[in-house]
């Protein structure tokens, strides 16, 4: 497969996943905002959390005069100036789908093309939570439809593996980011509040759509260590980092026909390094102050894997050294 095509496929897949994740995060937050209005101290930081997960607070402050629900919706969903806005993710995914049309199933192009065409005509009445939720649902459903198309139509060959590696990388990074940001907030609040951080850990589960699955495994109680080990090292939950990394590894083994070659060993090494960290015992034995460092370090390692993957398959031009 052409490197350029592989690169487009990779970014198409990441943008599909990103659009879905960001739509979910925004959707969850809009509902939580209604519920949390009484718990003022906690709600104050809510929007900052969402901004950090799906964009950046600094970027937001540069673009808007003040924090308001409408500005936040605009920034996260529609802004052309926010490279991670849902609108931009849809555009990139559709554009990348267009350049890989000869590789991907026609239906996959069509669902994104459809969403894109709808997006360009969408009018959301100011402040209408119903309209915006309807839109966010359209995005989530389209992303899930595209996973269905890929899984039921694509040959398990190189393009399929690339699509999936990108999806899992994006997902692993997002889960790591959510945990990292919520952990910081929780730690900051703990000093002031009564010590319960139930609110943040439930949020973390909701933001990655893992609340229901968590409840099936653990009693209905938000224990920090339980949530962390569920979202990091649960081998069967498809949004846990462990699950994503396992599947990335599996895909790369299929891509490489089970061999480790001179160009792919770095990839394997990076994956092995991160898998070592997943030990549940290790996570449970971390000291309070160690968690933050662990999560920081962990998020960096997830990002590294994305970079090494791109370099291994020439997806990015090697940086020119003079």
């Amino acid at each position, binding site marked *: 497969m*052409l*490197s*350029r095509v592989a690169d487009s496929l990779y970014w198409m897949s990441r943008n599909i996943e990103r659009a879905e994740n960001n739509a979910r995060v925004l959707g969850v937050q809009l509902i939580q905002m209604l519920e949390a209005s009484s718990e003022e101290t906690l709600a104050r930081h809510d929007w900052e959390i969402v901004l950090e997960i799906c964009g950046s607070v600094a970027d937001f402050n540069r673009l808007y005069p003040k924090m308001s629900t409408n500005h936040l919706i605009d920034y996260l969903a529609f802004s052309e100036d926010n490279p991670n806005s849902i609108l931009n993710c849809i555009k990139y995914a559709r*554009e990348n789908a267009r350049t890989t049309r*000869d590789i991907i199933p*026609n239906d996959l192009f069509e669902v994104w*093309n*459809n969403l894109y*065409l709808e997006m360009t005509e969408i009018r959301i009445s100011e402040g209408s939570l119903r309209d915006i939720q309807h839109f966010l649902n359209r995005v989530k459903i389209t992303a899930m439809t595209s996973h269905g198309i890929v899984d039921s139509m694509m040959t398990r060959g190189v393009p399929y593996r690339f699509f999936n590696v990108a999806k899992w990388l994006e997902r692993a990074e997002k889960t790591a980011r959510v945990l990292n940001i919520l952990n910081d907030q929780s730690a900051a609040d703990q000093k002031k509040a009564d010590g319960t951080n139930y609110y943040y850990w439930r949020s973390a589960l909701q933001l990655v759509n893992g609340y229901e699955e968590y409840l099936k495994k653990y009693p209905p109680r938000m224990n920090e260590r339980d949530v962390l080990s569920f979202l990091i090292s649960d081998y069967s939950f498809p949004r846990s980092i462990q699950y994503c990394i396992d599947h990335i590894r599996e895909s790369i083994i299929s891509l490489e026909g089970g061999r480790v070659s001179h160009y792919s060993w770095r990839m394997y090494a990076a994956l092995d390094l991160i898998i070592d960290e997943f030990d549940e015992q290790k996570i449970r034995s971390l000291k309070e102050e160690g968690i933050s460092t662990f999560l920081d370090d962990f998020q960096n390692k997830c990002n590294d894997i994305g970079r090494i993957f791109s370099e291994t398959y*020439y997806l990015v031009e090697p940086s020119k050294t003079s």
Partner: protein
Amino acid sequence: MFKPYQSETNFDEMLEKDGSVRSHYQDFHKVMDQFSEAELREKHETAQLSFLRQGITFTVYNDNIGTERTMPFDFIPIIMPPETWTMIEKGMRQRVEALNRFLDDIYHNAEIVKDGVIPREFVEQNPYYLKKQVTGIDVPLKNHIFLAGIDLIRDQEGTYRVLEDNLRNPSGMSYVYQNRYVMRQVYPEFFNRHSIQSLEHQLSHMHEAVLDHCPINCLHEPRAVLLTPGMYNSAYYDHVFLAQQMGIELVEGRDLYVRDNIVYVKTIRGMQRVDIIYRRIDDDFLDPQVFNKDSALGVPGLMSAYKKGNVSILNGVGNGVADDKAMYAFVPEMIRYYLNEDPIIPNVDTYFMRNIEQRKWALENLDQLVVKNVGASGGYDMLIGPHATNEEIDRFRKKIEEEPHQYIAQPTIQLSRAPAFQDGRFYPCHVDLRVFVMRGKKTHVLPGGLSRVALKEGSLVVNSSQGGGGKDTWVLKGGESNHAEQSS
């Protein structure tokens, strides 16, 4: 709801002069008459949406911003009886064969010029004649024309005439397929009563024809790619479709790399050799080392690999000299000269503005002529005398006097018409037909071709960038037309 109209000045594809339906359209007409207006409107909408959803678009350039548009589709097909098609097919083979011989000749010994059949200056001064870059190159099969798109029109009498030869990067083949596909989805009722030549196997013939152009230095299974300028090109959908259907890779200039006169493609497993390039990039942009230095679309070193016989480029480089609007006038002579045959399908008479007598006559009759810039395409820089204002005619008079070499003139032909259904009603619109000829070891003519229709009422310009639309083209199978007549 279809009301026949009188068509005295123009030949009508569907109706006789008295307004009755031609025999090969009768079955179609019967089915069509059973639809209510609401049904037709609904089907019309469904068809247009289907193109949009599938992303079958072309790009229109306005104020330097590319906008994606779909080509409007009209459901009334152009239907052709088998004997008509047989004649067109023969005429196309003959014409493209002669044009190909011409190209091979002028890039070798130029006998046709030496024999005085074509004046030397017409070749030598032609901006698309790449004497320096192409002369002496032996292309596989001596075939310069892998794909030709010949535009045909019909005059008052219904005689087919060639309007234009497109031997560089003719586009539109994907629309032929999509028109048929949408037609089958949206108007399945029509297909029960007709037996139509299928388009199914044509793209495997095309793929075979690509691979037939194995370069002389290729001793392995050849690897073919389709070279596109990218997704912002107006015909990008055409490129995607052909690459996908032929199962070859769609590449851009930046994916290719030439080292030691060998062309490679950059893949996730490193560099891999490329042997055949079906290019959809114009000559000028192909290789910045030889042509336009600023071009970022092309591949540096490509031409030297071509010269060395390490890679084939389809269509051949320098084909423009043969499909220029001035050279067009000499094609009947080429047919006589190379094939010793009379042209099966005639040209439209063409007058050269560089010729003093012809110019003098034309300048006096501009209001009855069509004037074209020999270097322009897509309906640009063109005067349609009978439809032009006095100012426009004066403007062209000046243009011709300033640059007579740039212009040719042709009599206005009463282009044939066919009914179209737009905005909820039927009206006659001008049509033309682009026929696609594929040449490898064998020659195949795509049965039918792309019927284009000038949907703006009264307009003569069928080009999609000027608001033209498409129609499905049906070539009836032999014998079936008899059956149709018996059953009616």
